[in-house]
């Protein structure tokens, strides 16, 4: 529905001129230029012609001096892109959301007020110039929009698909803060990135830099590693990426399913990096096949972005039975078979332990592999469990049965010695003596659930094996590499670390940002440092 904002009730902004200090905070916040300062009297006055009623002015006035009455006039509700029918999408591994059409993107872009002090941007970990790129979309300048995005992000196509926007950019959008539906920032970002990929524009080359002759190594090819490699290569350094797995891309390759993040995106990114001259050595595990000292001898600087790829497990009775596996194993096997390596049969009745992102990825993958009965259990109640609501809703649409306040007590073998059932138990929150609330089992609520496959999706921790045989960096108690915040420098000269390996499991966009920051610091170092490589 499109409303004509010139019709209907109009917002009214009341400013108490007596108490106005003329501090201009409101004026700087107003997206519509409705407020002006009388420089002699130092008071602000309002002209209502274009006022959107967004209440940004009211929210910032330090003196509680502004009252906005009347509606927040938006053009139309948020446009939701089409998603494929459940039946259809369960039949393959293609992306669920179809994304905006060009027409829809332009319409949605018109909802953005272009706030002068955009809170959405402050809330984006990458600091993307959101009103800037949306304005370019509005002007039909899609390459321009991409150029704006590329100033701050290397993976717009990825972030726009995997970011938890409701907690980041979109959660801070002025619409959302006023109780409405935020501008679809993620969808617009995705539209721009996809359009530019399909129309082969928006590629960023070397910035016209000469090769510096400096050599940098990046260990790990996840989002942190790839964006650092790209930024370093663009500065003219020779970059080699070492990856333990045969596939490149880290979690993007082995973890996040293709119905969320299609292969083409990653392949396209890797193609861009190859054009920049980045070398890849996959199947090379640093710490085992080669150690860090050797890398340091061959390179002027080394960046560790080894992620946090070690699954958390519960030591439950029966966990060693065949049929119990980790999310990593499950997801990477399914992705391998998508690439034609190995057969993947239906996992049968599946129980996923956890209800977070990874768990939903596992459950929805299992559904596509032909499993009819899928259960996910989380020990916490739904209100407090760290789940992404939109992902949860999609999984439920697809027939995944998610139980909160439920835990697993043990696994039971069937007649053949294989996994046959799991014993579930209900939980409730209780305060322990130190005042912290913990989920504890409720006696008498146990039930037996017959299952064929159990997948642990209870989060990750860092592995730290890249540091094997290298004493100059000591991981902390959680296995993380201690770094200087902002630069990613480690205790050892010439070694940086970034992403989940340094900060623990987190959001993909944060790993990317950390990679970029480390690359900036490494670039400065490499420009200043004499090459130590023979």
């Amino acid at each position, binding site marked *: 529905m499109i409303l004509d904002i010139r019709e209907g009730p109009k917002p009214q902004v009341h400013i108490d001129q*007596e108490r106005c*200090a003329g501090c201009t905070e409101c004026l*700087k916040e107003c997206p519509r230029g409705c407020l002006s300062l009388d420089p*002699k*009297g130092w*008071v602000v006055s309002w002209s209502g012609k274009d006022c959107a009623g967004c209440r940004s002015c009211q929210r910032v006035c*330090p*003196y*509680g001096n502004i009252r906005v009455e009347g509606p927040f006039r938006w053009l139309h509700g948020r446009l939701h892109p089409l998603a494929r029918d459940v039946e259809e999408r369960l039949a393959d591994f293609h992306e669920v959301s179809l994304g905006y059409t060009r027409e829809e993107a332009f319409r949605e872009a018109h909802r953005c007020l272009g706030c002068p002090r955009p809170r959405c941007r402050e809330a984006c970990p990458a600091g993307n110039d959101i009103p800037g790129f949306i304005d370019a979309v509005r002007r039909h300048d899609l390459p321009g929009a991409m150029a704006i995005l590329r100033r701050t992000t290397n993976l717009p196509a990825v972030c726009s698909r995997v970011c938890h926007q409701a907690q980041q950019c979109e959660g801070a959008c002025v619409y959302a803060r006023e109780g409405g539906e935020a501008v679809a920032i993620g969808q617009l970002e995705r539209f721009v990135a996809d359009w530019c990929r399909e129309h082969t524009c928006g590629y960023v080359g070397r910035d016209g830099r000469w090769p510096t002759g400096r050599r940098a190594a990046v260990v790990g090819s996840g989002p942190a590693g790839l964006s650092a490699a790209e930024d370093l290569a663009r500065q003219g350094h020779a970059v080699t990426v070492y990856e333990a797995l045969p596939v490149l891309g880290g979690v993007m390759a082995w973890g996040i399913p293709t119905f969320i993040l299609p292969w083409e995106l990653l392949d396209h990114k890797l193609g861009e990096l190859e054009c920049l001259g980045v070398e890849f050595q996959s199947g090379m595990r640093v710490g085992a096949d080669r150690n860090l000292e050797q890398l340091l001898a061959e390179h002027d600087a080394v960046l560790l972005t080894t992620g946090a790829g070690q699954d958390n497990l519960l030591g439950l009775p029966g966990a060693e039975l065949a049929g119990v596996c980790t999310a990593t194993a499950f997801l990477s096997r399914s992705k391998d078979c998508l690439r034609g390596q190995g057969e993947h049969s239906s996992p049968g009745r599946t129980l996923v332990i956890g209800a977070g992102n990874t768990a939903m990825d596992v459950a929805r993958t299992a559904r596509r592999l032909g499993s009819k009965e899928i259960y996910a259990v989380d020990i916490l109640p739904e209100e407090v469990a760290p789940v992404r609501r939109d992902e949860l809703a999609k999984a439920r649409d697809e027939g995944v049965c998610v139980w909160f306040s439920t835990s697993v007590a043990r696994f039971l073998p069937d007649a053949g010695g294989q996994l046959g059932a799991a014993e579930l138990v209900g939980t409730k929150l209780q305060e322990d003596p130190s005042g912290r609330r913990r989920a504890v089992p409720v006696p008498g609520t146990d039930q037996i659930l017959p299952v064929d496959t159990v997948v642990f999706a209870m989060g990750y921790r860092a592995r730290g094996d890249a540091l094997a045989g290298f004493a100059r960096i000591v991981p902390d108690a959680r296995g993380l590499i201690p770094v200087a915040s902002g630069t990613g420098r480690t205790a050892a000269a010439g070694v940086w670390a970034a992403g989940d390996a340094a900060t623990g499991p987190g959001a993909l966009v944060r790993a990317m940002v950390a990679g970029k920051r480390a690359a900036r610091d490494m670039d400065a170092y490499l420009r200043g440092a004499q090459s130590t490589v023979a």
Partner: protein
Amino acid sequence: MLAEPQRQPRLERETSPPAATAPYFAGDVRSFELTRIGWVARLFRRRWFQFAVILPNQIIFWVALIGGFIGTVDPTRSFGTAITWYFWFFAVLAGALMVGRVWCQICPFGGFAEWIQRLTPWGRRERGLTLNRRWPERWAVWGIIPGALVFYLLTWVEEYYNVVGPGKPIYTSYLIIFVFALAIGTFSVFGRRTFCRYLCPLSAPVGIFSTVGVLSGFRTRDRERCMSCDTKECMRGSKVSYGCPWFEFPGSNATNQGCGLCTECFKGCPNDNVGLYLQPPLTNVHSPGKRRWDVAWALVLLWGIGWYQQWNALSWFSNARGTGIDDWLNRLTGWPHYPNPLGYLLLTAGVAAGYYLYSRAAARWAGADWRRLFTAGAYALIPVVGADYLARQLPKLWDHVTRVITTASDPFGWGWNLFGTARLPIYHTRLLPPGGVVATQVAVMAIATAAAGWAAWRIWRRDWGGERPRVLGALALAVLAAGVYTAVMYVAMQAAE
């Protein structure tokens, strides 16, 4: 065809809403910048500065507070009673009227609550112990009136328990605890010094009377600079400073009424564009940038309290034989004893209503907008009302202030002699004879009335551009009547004793 421009009849009613009056900045008057003095500026830049000036005060008030619980029950021997009621309240008022908001710079209540709120005595921390809520807009429209109402309430409570009287020292402690608790509670829910700006019982009188004083408050040196300043560290805070705890904006600030002299903006401005000035007395009475409706009403409320406190000293209001107005009201309402809340309410409301009616009538006679006249008149009355509050403290000061010196050596009445002053004969010294006391009261009122008259003239010139002389007449009559009445009342009170 253009219509013939009509000649305006001379006394046509003003129809415009109260215009935002021309601003008035420190730089616009003869003023002296204190922060040009090197050591003053260096001192203000130190983060520990405010802590250092609050600390002694903090110790004094905690001693007074504790004394109420563990010390003597004899108020004449209690340090808490002596320091609070024979010296402190007088000093706060005198400081405000002569200098400015200096009390708030050293205030232990706001200071203590702020340390807790920031979780550091003087450092700069990002996070502290507060929910950091905003004072809601619908409360903010009332400006400083909530604070004035708390003061109104406390005054009545003080009369009821005869705290100042001198009553039991523990009552003084309860009063101090109440203010501490209100401060800490508000500081932990609302951000910055919301308490000081809106709720502190002392803030309304101290802030309003400060406009008489000579300290301008911190404000900008060059307004143009602030106009183009995007970062506004003074308001938003910086690495080395907090954003103005009082929610003031030095850039446009033209009155000292709301600046708590905390020096944060001085520390924070990256353009070195903030200074502290001395200005002629009464400057912010006649030229406060903008005149505020809430300030005017708060003043009228304070004035009403002043009336009450004079009436209640007279025998026909309340006496031992039970024939006074208050006694009659108590019998009527079944209230146990003086002061009857209905009487308090009626008298203070009566003063407000009287002033309101006067403004309406005078505005009609002068052809002025009554709101403007009401507000301007209230500002003109500030010196008179302030002087009334001060004069009321004088008998206690002249008669008993020496006890501060003796009780300081024996704060709890336990027979100590810490500084060797406990047994000095000055304990009974009265600094002035009774006739001298009332003479000083009348003198204070005379000076204040003259000052208010002068301020009325400046206000008229500034707000009405020297037009509508009847406005000046109305303002002058109000201050003259108020001043003379108050002086006469002091003579009457003396006679009643």
